[in-house]
């Protein structure tokens, strides 16, 4: 890109290059506060965890390939399926969506140069990484959580699980929750405050709406999980009785708290996927989204309604019928916003000129699987039916269709879609399509028979079954599907890895995309945009005039904001220019804070509370140091800031 610039424009770009230069090498990555580098680190870390969670899934499937297999002992099986669930939810999908996609793309899409709190962003990453390592330390030492990902008490109480397994669960999720909350807050403030001038809320990409909704859900849902785990550890460590029926506590308190978090959580998982779908579809069908405002509203509505349905996970616990009916009704209502979005996508594809490239194929796969999973979700909102299939493989089928087909497929489609942007190279289209079809068929063969297994009475979380049960064929089929699926996913990785080195150069905008990220070069420079773009519709890349004006402003050096790491701050609703924000430079503090917090949680899990408190004090001191005044800061003038 730089080579085609006129001399004055090049001078301006070079100025920005110098201002935004970061350290090279490993230290550069450790100290970075660049949202793109942090996003990439999130991506690599969550991919590694995906591989781990996938291996666990394959172990599960191999154990269940036939009756009475002995690959895994019952102890190991329990740890493996629990770690599979925790890994996939907390260490793969959440960090992959909000962490990797959100971090990398949200600032680009809104024309900002970084997240609102770049250093906090880096801390989030290191804390997330720490929490993942923490949980895998548990697995490596044979102390992995083993009471399932929703960890029902009293099975998870000290009495029935005296080891440190559950302590790793409790502390690990609090640990992880800190990172997710910080990321979510960061995304919300970034979207509210850093949108390019002119990008009023009604011109904001649907992708950002989806991430905004997911981030809000995270902020307000996670405290319920944190609270539940605090109670759990108080019960386990100090002998409190929140969950102890013998002393006036109630095991169902855990279930309520967990699902008050847990159901919003599943929409937190799917919403970013919705956002990815709404980014990919317009690009490849060459048409604007049908019913844009309604889709935006539906995205927010899903997140909001998601807080009112939690007890549909508890239809079999013996709640009064009236209560279950209420939660069944809310669970059915929430179908409507999903249906609106679904048909908005389908109609957009139908009325546009679809080009069935690899990313769009993954989205089509997503639509098909999300319908299957969504419809099975509707069937379990029918109370009597759920009272049959609850905790059976029917549920496993439901949530893998909505999670794997519904959330992971768009993530993979998104990886292909933004690969040229992130790396500057094209992936291999033929291999891309092959990887899609392998994964599509693999998913279907793996998870569809699980519906039937559930209806045939197969409970979930059993480490084996007898030949007489009649579940053998179904399970063998599922296992075969899982291997096929693994092959498809491996092909995705291989395709992207090889293309990283061998792919054809991509250019800034290989797809003719509609959102701002395609305006900058591939990969984007550290400062994202040489001049801050201005926006006058929801499809800024399709507004040729605006982009042409950006180029002219670059020649003139207008809107460079090059006196430091600067980015404009705008008003929340109308995105009127309000201030110029100074972003912090790179810093070793975030990684240091992450390391200290990690040490603190290790001390907690070893029940060295005094040491943990000491480490907490250290963290507090670091945070004070964190607020050292930015270099060259001058006191605000008398009469001051507002």
């Amino acid at each position: 890109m730089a080579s085609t610039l006129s001399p004055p424009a090049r001078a301006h770009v070079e100025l920005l290059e110098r201002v935004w230069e970061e350290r090279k090498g490993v230290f550069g990555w450790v100290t970075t506060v660049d949202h793109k580098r942090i996003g990439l680190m999130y991506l690599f870390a969550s991919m590694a965890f995906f591989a781990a969670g996938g291996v666990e899934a394959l172990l599960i499937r191999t154990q269940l390939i036939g009756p009475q297999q002995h690959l895994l002992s019952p102890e190991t099986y329990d740890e493996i399926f629990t770690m599979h669930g925790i890994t996939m939810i907390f260490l793969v999908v959440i960090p992959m969506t909000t962490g990797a996609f959100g971090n990398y793309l949200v600032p680009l899409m809104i024309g900002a140069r970084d997240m609102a709190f770049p250093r906090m962003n880096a801390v989030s990453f290191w804390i997330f990484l720490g929490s993942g390592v923490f949980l895998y330390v548990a697995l490596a030492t044979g102390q992995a959580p083993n009471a399932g990902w929703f960890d029902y008490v009293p099975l998870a109480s000290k009495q029935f699980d005296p080891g440190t397994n559950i302590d790793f669960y409790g502390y690990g999720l609090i640990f992880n929750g800190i990172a997710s909350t910080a990321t979510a807050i960061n995304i919300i403030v970034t979207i509210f405050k850093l949108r390019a001038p002119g990008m009023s809320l009604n011109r904001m990409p649907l992708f950002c709406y989806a991430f905004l909704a997911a981030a809000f859900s995270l902020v307000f849902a996670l405290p319920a999980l944190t609270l539940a785990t605090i109670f759990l550890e108080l019960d386990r460590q100090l002998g409190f009785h929140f969950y102890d029926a013998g002393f006036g506590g109630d095991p169902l308190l855990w279930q309520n708290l967990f699902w008050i978090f847990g159901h919003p959580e599943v929409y937190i998982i799917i919403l970013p996927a919705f956002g990815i779908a709404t980014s990919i579809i317009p690009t490849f069908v060459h048409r604007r989204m049908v019913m844009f405002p309604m889709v935006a509203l539906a995205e927010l509505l899903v997140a909001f309604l998601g807080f009112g349905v939690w007890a549909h996970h508890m239809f079999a616990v013996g709640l009064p019928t009236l209560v279950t009916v209420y939660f069944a009704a809310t669970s059915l209502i929430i179908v409507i916003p999903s249906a609106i979005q679904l048909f908005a996508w389908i109609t957009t594809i139908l009325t546009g000129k679809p080009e069935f490239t690899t990313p769009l194929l993954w989205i089509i796969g997503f639509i098909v699987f999300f319908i299957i999973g969504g419809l099975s979700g509707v069937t379990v909102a029918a109370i009597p039916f759920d009272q049959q299939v609850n905790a059976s493989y029917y549920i496993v089928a439901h949530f893998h269709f909505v999670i794997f087909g519904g959330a992971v497929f768009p993530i993979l489609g998104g990886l292909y879609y933004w690969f040229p942007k992130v790396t500057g190279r094209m992936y291999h289209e033929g291999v891309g399509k092959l990887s899609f079809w392998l994964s599509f068929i693999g998913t279907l063969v793996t998870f569809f028979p699980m519906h039937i297994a559930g209806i045939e009475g197969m409970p979930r979380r059993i480490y084996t079954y007898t030949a007489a049960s009649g579940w053998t064929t179904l399970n063998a089929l599922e296992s075969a599907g899982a291997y096929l699926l693994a092959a498809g996913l491996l092909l995705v990785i291989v395709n992207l890895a090889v293309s990283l080195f061998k792919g054809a150069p991509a250019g800034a905008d290989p797809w003719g995309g509609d959102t701002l990220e395609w305006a900058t070069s591939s990969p984007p420079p550290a400062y994202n945009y040489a001049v801050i773009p201005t926006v006058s519709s929801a499809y800024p890349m399709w507004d040729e005039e605006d982009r042409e004006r950006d180029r002219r402003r670059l020649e003139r050096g207008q809107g460079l904001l090059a006196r430091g790491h600067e980015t404009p701050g705008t008003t929340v609703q109308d995105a009127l220019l309000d201030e110029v924000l100074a972003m912090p430079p790179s810093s070793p503090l975030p990684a240091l804070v992450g390391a200290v917090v990690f040490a603190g949680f290790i001390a907690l899990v070893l029940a060295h509370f005094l040491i943990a408190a000491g480490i907490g004090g250290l963290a507090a001191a670091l945070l004070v140091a964190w607020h050292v005044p930015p270099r060259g800061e001058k006191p605000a003038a008398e009469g001051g800031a507002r």
Partner: protein
Amino acid sequence: MSGAHPDAAGGRELSLAPQRPSLAPTPAAAGRVASRRRALPSGMWGMALFLGAESMLFAGLISSYFYLDFRATRWPPAGARLPETLIPSILTAVLVTTSVPVALAARRAIAGRRAATMALLGLAAFVQSGYLAYQLHDLVDQVHSLPPQGSAYASAYIALLGLHHAHVLLGVLLDLGMLFWLALSGLSDYRVTGVRCVALYWHVVNVIAVAVLLTELTPVL
């Protein structure tokens, strides 16, 4: 908002002139525009959202308290001593009044008056740490007279107290950190936002203090 070209948003040019080359990443530009800022600064948004999360935590805790209350046949259980009313109410009232000095501190900070900001914040911190010291001392007694290992009621009661004290502790640390930096460096825009965030934190923690107090007093109300 529609109509006008966004580049001239609000009547101001995005950038006044081609910028002077400058290598030092200085935030000097910040003060320039910040003084005319119309929206809340990012820091305030961040703090507000964090406090939203913390409020959810307490909402959950208070709901859990009442959930267990409604499940129980006797709440508090037979033999458990009832909560005191007078001293906790007075203490909470004292804590709540510290909202006044922190609010004033934030206003002084916006006006650029460093000494006044520090004095007000210092006053608040003094009262708040006094409150905390008394409460922690009292908590030790309470744990003895109502051991949380005795019943779910005691567990919920002590956890409610303890978690709120933890938030007061965090607030006092915020006060002290803020005073530390105010003493060492000027009252920049960055620091003003900081003071406003601390003030917001205290307002919310004080509201929660009232909610916690009322919850704990339900058995005797």
